């Protein structure tokens, strides 16, 4: 029946004529990028420079269609639903710079968990998953994987394949062999699209593929009902850098991109250092709330000890670098290379560095090498080039394997995963990956995640991996950010001094009627988890600070949001009279399994400092961006004034940068 083919041919050839304006726009963009690449234009600009009005997106319409006509979707060949497995796209990130849309993180895993859709359709003899792999024209693994199909001349294919990456270690070959094996059934889970069954389909993102982890802002709690507040510390800073990158490209970040505690914790604060060999010191400050005269802010600042740099243990670093095609942008792989080069001089000769890349296949590019041999490391970094697909899970496995081999007593081993966020797990679902990382955490290897580039940033996965891997997630948009993360804070970022740090505050109902924790939404713990040493929490690095801020309201204040209970008069304990609350901190020495408890009363008389006021200004900044309902008339001008007045020394200029970002945000939000 070649009729059908002819019909299909003529239907396909009747492609609609391209729109003249769209063509002009695309060509202008091509020329602009061309010029930029030639270096004739100014320094590389962020890819966020493009904000064209995006045409209505097919995905959204698709959802409309799917939700209204699920039946048709179900008749679609099951095989057709298994899409894009470990693919693998050498093309530079193609969805960059679209206006940011956000996927609520809680929803993302739903699809990933969806069970495998068995290819039961009548005539689907081909293994779809592997076949998809075969389509990756440029990846070096692709040609051999294609063997899964009935292919008459496999050798010819191998010949036709482009040459493999220049450096191919033993491990890479091994990995590649493994990737050729048919995937286990479980592997299909990630790609099996649940079609019309997705109940949350309506909340689909409109345009870009970034995913951000966040939860609704913490509500005001009534002390009489829930006197205890428990959370894990958060040392990530990624949210601030994401906010900065949005603002500097002229877009207000979406509220979901803003995690207030990460913004506050981005800045160094001069809190008192711990004494007598303690791992860290906590400082409490109480001050009137800038945005509400009827409430007070209680700031809890934790300062990690900074052991003499000379005493630091030798460091084993495994750079796990995403060299997939999408990294081929000035603000991705090249920036990443520059960043790592910046860091090398900070290492000591006895430290060890290894480099694992992942793209079409995972490979050991640089076996463990003494930092003294800087030339070898630099030349390994130099030849990294983007291209091919992403196989993150394999890369991660290999990185842990390499890290295992580098370990020695008394040394600190850490994997630094650098990616543009498209952590294509390919062979296992993200939840499995998190579980894997959580399991590996027990081996004592830390995992930190460095995010590069925008448009595709899978903040949710980054967060989850770093959180489960006992590491930090940072987002690097400029070389100076790389400097901050990798050089200025090298010790803090790489040497943990306290693991699983949890904070619990019990508020005194006699003095605090209501309280609200600002930020830390994604870090909430159950009350009973505080004493459970098996429950994971955040790590503090050497010399770093962590700040948490509560807004508290006294009984009888006009600022109370809830009416007092008629029968719920709160009896104050004699001993605690006048105290606002009781602060408990739990932490473990790195590698230890039992935690230590530190308790401090909050008297309400602790003085505020420039540091805590600046932290308050940043908390206000974050809440303004989130559109918080608790700020009243307090706005950008007040935030700017407060931050400016409390700049302090600011030797690196981080704080003045924040003020300028507030000014930008003010202008943008006025529109």
């Amino acid at each position, binding site marked *: 029946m070649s009729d059908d083919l002819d019909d299909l041919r003529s239907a396909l050839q009747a492609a609609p004529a391209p729109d003249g304006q769209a063509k002009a726009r695309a060509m202008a963009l091509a020329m602009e990028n061309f010029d930029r690449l030639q270096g004739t234009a100014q320094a590389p600009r962020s890819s966020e420079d493009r904000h064209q009005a995006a045409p209505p997106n097919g995905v959204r319409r*698709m959802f409309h269609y799917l939700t209204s006509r699920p039946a048709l979707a179900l008749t679609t060949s099951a095989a057709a639903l298994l899409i894009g497995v470990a693919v693998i796209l050498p093309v530079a990130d193609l969805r960059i710079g679209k206006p940011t849309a956000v996927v609520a993180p809680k929803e993302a895993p739903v699809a990933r968990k969806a069970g495998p859709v068995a290819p039961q359709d009548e005539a689907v003899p081909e293994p779809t998953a592997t076949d998809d792999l075969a389509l990756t024209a440029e990846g070096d693994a692709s040609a051999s994987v294609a063997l899964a199909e009935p292919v008459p001349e496999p050798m010819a294919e191998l010949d036709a394949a482009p040459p493999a990456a220049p450096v191919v270690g033993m491990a890479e070959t091994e990995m590649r062999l493994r990737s050729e094996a048919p995937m286990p059934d479980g592997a299909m889970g990630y790609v099996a699209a649940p079609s019309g069954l997705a109940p949350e389909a309506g909340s689909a993102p409109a345009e870009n593929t970034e995913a951000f982890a966040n939860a609704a802002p913490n509500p005001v709690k009534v002390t009489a009902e829930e006197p205890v507040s428990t959370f894990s510390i958060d040392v990530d800073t990624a949210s601030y850098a994401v906010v900065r990158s949005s603002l500097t490209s002229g877009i207000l970040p979406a509220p979901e991109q803003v995690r207030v505690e990460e913004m506050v914790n981005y800045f160094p604060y001069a809190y008192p250092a711990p004494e007598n060999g303690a791992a860290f010191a906590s400082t409490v400050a109480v001050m009137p709330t800038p945005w509400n005269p009827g409430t007070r802010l209680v700031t809890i600042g934790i300062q990690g000890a900074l052991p003499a740099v000379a005493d630091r243990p030798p460091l084993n670093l495994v750079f796990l670098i995403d060299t997939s095609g999408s990294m081929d942008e000035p603000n991705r792989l090249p920036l990443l290379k520059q960043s790592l080069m910046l860091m090398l001089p900070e290492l000591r000769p006895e430290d060890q560095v290894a480099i694992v890349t992942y793209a079409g296949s995972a490979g050991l590019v640089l076996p463990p090498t003494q930092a003294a041999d800087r030339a070898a490391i630099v030349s390994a970094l130099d030849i990294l080039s983007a291209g091919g697909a992403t196989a993150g899970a394999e890369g991660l496995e290999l990185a842990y394997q390499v890290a295992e081999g580098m370990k020695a007593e008394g040394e600190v081993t850490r994997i630094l995963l650098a990616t543009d966020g498209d952590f294509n797990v390919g062979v296992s679902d993200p939840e499995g990956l998190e579980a894997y990382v959580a399991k590996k955490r027990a081996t004592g290897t830390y995992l930190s995640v460095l995010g590069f580039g925008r448009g595709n940033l899978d903040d949710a996965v980054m967060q989850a991996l770093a959180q489960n891997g006992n590491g930090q997630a940072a987002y690097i948009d400029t070389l100076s950010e790389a400097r901050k993360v990798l050089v200025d804070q090298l010790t803090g970022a790489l040497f943990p001094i306290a693991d699983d740090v949890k904070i619990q505050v019990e508020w005194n109902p006699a003095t605090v009627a209501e309280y609200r924790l600002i930020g830390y939404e994604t870090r909430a713990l159950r009350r009973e988890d505080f004493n459970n040493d098996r429950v994971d929490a955040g790590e503090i690095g050497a010399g770093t600070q962590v700040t948490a801020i509560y807004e508290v309201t006294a009984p009888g204040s006009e600022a109370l949001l809830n009416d007092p209970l008629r029968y719920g008069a709160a009896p104050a304990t004699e001993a605690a009279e006048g105290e606002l609350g009781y602060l408990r901190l739990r932490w473990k020495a790195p590698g230890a399994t039992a935690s230590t408890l530190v308790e401090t009363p909050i008297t309400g008389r602790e003085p505020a400092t420039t540091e805590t006021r600046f932290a308050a200004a940043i908390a206000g900044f974050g809440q303004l961006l989130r559109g918080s309902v608790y700020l009243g008339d307090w706005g950008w001008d007040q935030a700017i004034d407060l931050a400016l007045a409390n700049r302090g020394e600011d030797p690196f200029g981080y704080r003045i940068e924040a003020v300028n970002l507030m000014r930008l945000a003010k202008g943008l939000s006025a529109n």
Partner: protein
Amino acid sequence: MLMDTPDEMLATHAAQGDRAAFATLVGRHYDRIHGLAWRLTGSQAEAEDLAQDICAALPSKLRNWRGEAKFTTWLYRVVVNAAHDLRRRQATRAKAAQGWGDWEIARQDEIAAQAEAADWLAQAMTRLSPELRDTVALVLGQEMTQAEAGVVLGVSEGTIAWRMSEVKKRLRAMAREGAE
């Protein structure tokens, strides 16, 4: 003069920083990029988006141009990979989106006669697995030989032939159902 220069030479010059060569090249091929993008996604809006994204990425992509293949082959590979990228994102983020389903929506907005043809195409394409769709987009839509399509998709000519016979089978099955 540039108008007569072969693609491959233009690409090589463009890769070396020749602005005029690059402009000529993009101008010459935009329609092709758009056409293939449409065949792969089944949506005008997505084809435009995809074409624009490809144009934007082309300068840096060209750095990988080695002149080992025909330029169009190389370019189609870029387009196909971009479409895969898009599909994968839609699959992971948005779960079920399969471009061709858009036709169902578009259909309602279009004039009946056009819609009928489009509807048939959409149904036919939805029947096919993504790899079969890619294959027909290249072989039937772009009129490539099976060998050329094989190079673009990174599979052998034999695989393409096998896939085309699969396509025929599916179409036949579809015609049978329609007749019933």
